């Protein structure tokens, strides 16, 4: 396989930008049983993407970490009269692709199908059954639980994963974002079928659902798709709002021993939420600081000037409530302290001095000039629209995006960073072999 020069860590909302100067025309309505529907017609390829999103991510686990993940994982293993084999065949036979998964905020089901009616109808029928009458068969439950436990065990052989888990714990304490979204071995072992069924019945309901359709269908077909998919899904209730995460009182450094050649480092604080008042200055500012790959300041200082790490970056991950601001790098154990020092100093200097007019200009050019690339495939479109929908952003959000980026000033960036990112409260995780234990 190929080796890439740089891994760019991306997430949906961190790199938000949008159509040549305008976003897509999003049509919006409510399904017969009360779910929000979003539709963007496309032309040129005889295919359609559908995504159903619930507020049923790991933030809804309660104390049963892993509950959202396992519930999502069981959906396509049995539904209505079909077992896992029957479901798989129905989808594979028509070339359709179905997936389920979760984030901290959401649970989703995605379907990609050709638009030829016979093929599409069979794919939709199957997806409908998975959504409204999953079986949660005991044999499937036991198998999927074992598979999840196997994955959780494998996670423990990755210093990067261990550092990521510790990072969220350090930032979020007892907040629902604190635990790993796949759960922990202890909590997953205790999960029962009934737990999954209860979770499903509470959160997989119409009022808690939205559906996004992108593809080469007309709006009447889109209406039929939405109504058909969600038919028989009970109305239900929306879950309560998530609590506000608190900032830590003071900076903290946690080291964890691991027999690896490199030390993996994460450092950050709770950052911002989607639709945050400071979103644009923080987003554009971070683009300069650590969010634009090799040309960003952190990468320049850590990698380009000193050769200390293959990747070094900072990102905001906006969630429903404040998601993390996270800086990261990985380097051989005996230079970890030096690299962390460079990274944190870059942050401090950036906050103290703010960006130069030239740096800001360069980042604006990249963000605005790259606008068309954020929406150049159905895949990217559906992800953008799903985020707009889930986070209740205005439908014309993408249309005003460029103007809001252009309006950001160096002063606004400095002010927002000073107010939101306190280097004296950074939570820093280092996982690797400490210098003295090296061979």
């Amino acid at each position, binding site marked *: 396989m190929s080796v890439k020069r740089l891994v760019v860590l991306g997430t949906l909302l961190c790199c938000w930008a949008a159509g040549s100067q305008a976003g897509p025309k999003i049509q919006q309505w409510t399904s017969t049983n009360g779910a929000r529907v979003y539709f963007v017609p496309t032309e040129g390829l005889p295919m359609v993407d559908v995504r159903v999103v619930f507020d049923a991510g790991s933030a809804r686990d309660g104390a049963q970490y892993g509950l959202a993940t396992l519930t999502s994982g069981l959906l396509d293993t049995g539904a209505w*009269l079909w077992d896992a084999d029957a479901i798989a065949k129905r989808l594979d036979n*028509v070339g359709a692709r179905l997936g389920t998964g979760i984030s901290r905020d959401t649970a989703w089901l995605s379907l990609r199908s050709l638009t030829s009616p016979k093929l599409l109808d069979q794919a939709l029928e199957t997806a409908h059954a998975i959504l409204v009458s999953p079986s949660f068969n005991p044999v499937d439950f036991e*198998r999927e639980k074992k*598979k999840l436990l196997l994955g959780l065990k494998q996670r423990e052989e990755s210093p990067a994963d261990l550092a990521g888990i510790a990072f969220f714990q350090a930032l979020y304490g007892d907040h629902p974002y604190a635990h790993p979204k796949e759960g922990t071995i202890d909590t997953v072992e205790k999960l029962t079928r009934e737990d999954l069924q209860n979770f499903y019945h509470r959160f997989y309901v119409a009022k808690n659902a939205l559906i996004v359709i992108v593809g080469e269908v007309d709006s009447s077909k889109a209406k039929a798709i939405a109504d058909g998919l969600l038919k028989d899904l009970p109305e239900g209730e929306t879950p309560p709002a998530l609590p506000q995460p608190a900032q830590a009182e003071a900076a903290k450094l946690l080291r964890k021993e691991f027999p690896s050649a490199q030390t993996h480092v994460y450092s950050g604080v709770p950052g911002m939420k989607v639709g945050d008042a400071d979103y644009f200055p923080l987003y554009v500012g971070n683009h300069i600081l650590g969010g634009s790959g090799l040309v960003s300041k952190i990468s320049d200082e850590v990698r380009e000037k000193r050769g*200390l790490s293959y990747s070094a970056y900072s990102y905001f991950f906006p969630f429903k409530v404040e998601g993390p601001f996270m800086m990261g790098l990985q380097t051989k154990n005996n230079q970890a302290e030096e690299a962390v020092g460079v990274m944190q100093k870059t942050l401090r200097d950036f906050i103290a001095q703010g960006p130069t007019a030239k740096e800001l200009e360069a980042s604006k050019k990249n963000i605005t000039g790259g606008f068309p690339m954020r929406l150049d*495939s159905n895949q990217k479109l559906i992800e953008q629209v799903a985020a707009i929908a889930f986070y209740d952003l205005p439908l014309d959000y993408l249309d005003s995006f460029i103007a809001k980026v252009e309006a950001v000033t160096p002063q606004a960036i400095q002010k927002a960073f000073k107010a939101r990112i306190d280097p004296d409260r950074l939570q820093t995780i280092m996982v690797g072999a400490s210098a003295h234990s090296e061979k």
Partner: protein
Amino acid sequence: MASTRTLGLLLLAVPLSLQAASPKVSEFKLDNGLKLLVQEDHRAPVAVTQVWYKVGSSYEHGGITGISHMLEHMMFKGTKKHPPGEFSRIISANGGSENAFTGEDYTAYFQTLEKSRLGVSFDLEADRMRNLRLLPDEFTKEQQVVLEERRLRTDDQPRAKLGEQFNALAYSNSPYKNPVIGWPDDVSKLTVTDLADWYQRWYAPNNATVVVVGDVNPAEVHHLAQKYFGSLKPSRLPAVKPRTEIEQAGLRRMIVKAPAKLPFLVMGYKVPVLNGAAQAWEAYALEVAAGVLDGGNSARLESRLVRGQQIAGNVDAGYDLYSRLPSLFMLEGTPVQGKSLPELEQSLLEEVRKLRDEPVTAEELERVKAQVLASKVFERDSIFYQAMQLGTTETVGLGWEKVDEYVDKINAVTPEQVKQVAEKYLVEDRLSVGYLEPLPIPEGQTAPEDKAPLGGQHVR
């Protein structure tokens, strides 16, 4: 529920007519030997440019492994015209995203830009095709970056470590035995002179293919290519030695021990690929065999080993039709808790035996074909992926036309042919098996070092 559901297992043939929409590729060749492939896709005002060079780790010899990848890194470190880092800054200021990748058979560079800025990437790519400046200071730092990349991707990843050592066992003399990123000692001993030689040898218009996919007009792109690349001088390219892998003469086995939590199994059979295959259908039949085993959730490995027998936590089959040299038909997986690597190996061998002994069912074959047809439409959602396919097939010597032929060739495969290739190639004497045996990971001690901000004191 609607009663039509009871017809659920009826196979719905994906209409072949969908394939008629296959996009047109325009091919040009400049006088200096540069090849240009252009495919129009007018869905968004965007164009991707990829510059493919016929050089990669399979062109390397012992002692300098990893040099193609190291040179790829240095291609961002300046030319006579542009100082280090400026390439990336210019692309960034134009709203573009860019990167590069190295494989066994190619080194490729790419930019994605708004369509009117295609000239920006052509200008920069043409410049670094012939005018790279290899600065010793930049090289020394970048060598450290690549060694960090190796630690990240291989040294600290137990399965990658197994994969690397597995290739070194399975191949005797094929250059595929070496890792793309290079052996650590080779990488750390590379010199600027080594890189300069490598650059002089391979970076020339007559060893490159430029692929453009997006909202463009082929004639205009040709004109632009002529403008920027037209004046570059071609090189005399060295002949590439075939280095044909010797016949394997029996089963090979290995164990790799590494700190890990789970065991892992890899198996690989020596097989032909489309390039250089005596009979092309054999390669397509192997592709179908991989699909029967691992094409979707209903395929044999998932339905039998993961769900039915519940012996595997996960399991995959893979075959790379488009590699330059004969390669491996791979099977790999993790046993579930309570099952062992030998047990998983036996189950996989049993599935391979069935491929040899019993023709695949018509239903399975139809399902693989339906998925291939649908995938052909789905993959057109990504202009980058389309450019990748054109670049790969052209660079390994097959020609981009193979991308167009794919669906027809797969459709022509019969159950008997799948059985034949299994009998011929998926046999013990061509097999290598590797086990990852976990070494214990000591319980990680967590040491809070409270209120000790690292901010800045250690900066040199």
